[in-house]
């Protein structure tokens, strides 16, 4: 049996389409964990990235932090947090957020830093307050890059959120982990396929988001 057969078998089994272990439930759980983690990561990463980028300071500290964040193995962190904190969503959220903050933070910082300085100078020179300079001049131009940082983070979260299943939570990881224990490869392949599909959907969502939010004056060529 090849992978396609596994996948076909998994998705055509009607038992997988309802109940607490059904695809809709697991998918909803997975999306909920992912969105929650992305929200926290953005709440941390965006403001720090925007402010440091605007004032052009703290680049080195950020790079260090980002490298450290990326170097931490998510699974190891999960186990550590689980032992430390115990059951619950929190031990899952921490490694996901640690994973997602660096791309958001560093890309946002770089995006704001790389905005052409002359419109910024013009904006200040005509008496625009600093907050407006940031949000009305720098952010609109930096938006494509900022969104790409969020997209990278989102995709990493979606693929990594499978680890939630290790600590008895739901999500698409359930299929992969249970399948491995039960030597039910249909389930493993089905779960993996769903995760991959969700990652692709995430890409699509960000593409649509940037079509809607980025000004046509900025979008050209990109």
């Amino acid at each position, binding site marked *: 049996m090849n992978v396609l057969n596994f996948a076909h078998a998994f998705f055509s089994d009607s038992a997988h389409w309802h109940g607490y272990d059904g695809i809709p439930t697991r998918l909803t759980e997975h999306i909920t964990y992912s969105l929650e983690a992305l929200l926290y990561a953005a709440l941390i990463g965006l403001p720090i990235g925007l402010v440091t980028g605007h004032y052009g300071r703290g680049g080195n500290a950020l790079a260090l932090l980002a490298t450290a964040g990326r170097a931490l193995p998510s699974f190891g962190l999960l186990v550590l947090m689980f032992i430390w904190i115990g059951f619950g969503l929190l031990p899952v959220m921490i490694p996901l957020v640690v994973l997602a903050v660096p791309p958001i933070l560093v890309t946002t910082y770089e995006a704001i830093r790389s905005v052409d300085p*002359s419109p910024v100078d013009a904006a*200040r*020179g005509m008496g625009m*307050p600093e907050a407006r300079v940031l949000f009305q001049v720098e952010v609109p*131009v930096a938006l494509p890059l900022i969104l790409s940082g969020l997209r990278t983070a989102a995709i990493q979260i979606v693929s990594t959120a499978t680890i939630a299943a290790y600590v008895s939570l739901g999500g698409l990881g359930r299929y992969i982990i249970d399948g491995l224990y039960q030597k039910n490869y249909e389930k493993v392949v089905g779960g993996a396929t769903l995760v991959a599909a969700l990652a692709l959907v995430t890409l699509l969502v960000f593409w649509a988001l940037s079509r809607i939010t980025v*000004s*046509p004056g900025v979008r*050209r060529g990109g």
Partner: protein
Amino acid sequence: MIRIDSVTKRYPDGTVAVDRLSLEVPDRAITVLVGPSGCGKTTTLRMINRMVEPTEGGILLDGTDIRQQPVNTLRRSMGYVIQNAGLFQHRTILDNIATVPRLLGTPKKQARARAAELMERVGLDAALARRYPYQLSGGQQQRVGVARALAADPPVLLMDEPFSAVDPVVRKGLQDELLRIQDELGKTIVFVTHDIDEAIKLGTMVAVLRTGGRLAQFAPPAELLSAPADAFVEDFLGADRGIRRLSFFPSAELELETEPIVAADADAETIAARSAAPYLLVTDADGRPLGWSEPDRLTAGAVDTGQLLDHGRPFVPGTDSLRTALDGAVLSPTGRAVAVDGEGRAVGVVSQQVIGDAIRAAHSRAAGAADAAGAADAEAVR
């Protein structure tokens, strides 16, 4: 009036950008700050809208220290134009221009109406209103930059090398446009450039700064050319300042000869009557110059226009300066310049000798005026 009062800008590393500079910027005129790079001209400009704070000294606007009011209020009362325009690429042309009125709380609709008005004033096609900056040429972008600075109708306009990034032809167009707008609006303009020709063309007053941020000379452009304060200014003005000074002398008083002009279809009698002149200027039926010819080479009734010598670039007496007239005479193979009216019809010719006499007369008149002014000053001192 803007009074720059003994202003110094020293950076923490000890570099002195501007050194005890004092300058009185006249109202409703263009004051140009010019000098080599590192002379502090941009720093001086940026101190006027407090983009840079002076280390010592102060700047007065209509007698009040500019630090008396909130910095953003000050900046909104001064238009600011920079090199490369610095347009907001995510906003349409119309919304770029409407920026300052919007900052000042003007409703969107009104601000856009005002922006449309300004597009017309700076010579931008209304069709560009909904475009984005990247869809415009460099020259058009710079016009938008000027329109944006004028949008809130500020009494003061600060311009930092606004035209230095565009090609010479576009630059000349922008300069002429600025002079035209200034004729209409009468703003107090402070203009920074490194191009002395631009300074002389645009400036009512020109401040030449030297490296280290010290004032070398502050004078009207004609005076700068006739009496540079020192070797630095003379050197900075460059070669042929004598020729360039002629731009300030009108050509209206040149004595034009009308004798040596003949129409292309002139008969033998007319040509013979005028053959005393070494060259005759042949014109078409409308009186526009075609070219020069020696009288004995002309065939009556049907001139072969292919045989004519090029007449060079004509000048318009009264509008053009002696410089243009002299240029026309120098370019012409016959040593004579052609004077035309507004429609391009030949109204006379003038030789290099006559232009030379006019230049000497203009020089002695200018010297007389300077002496009189000097005497008046001396009188006043007494």
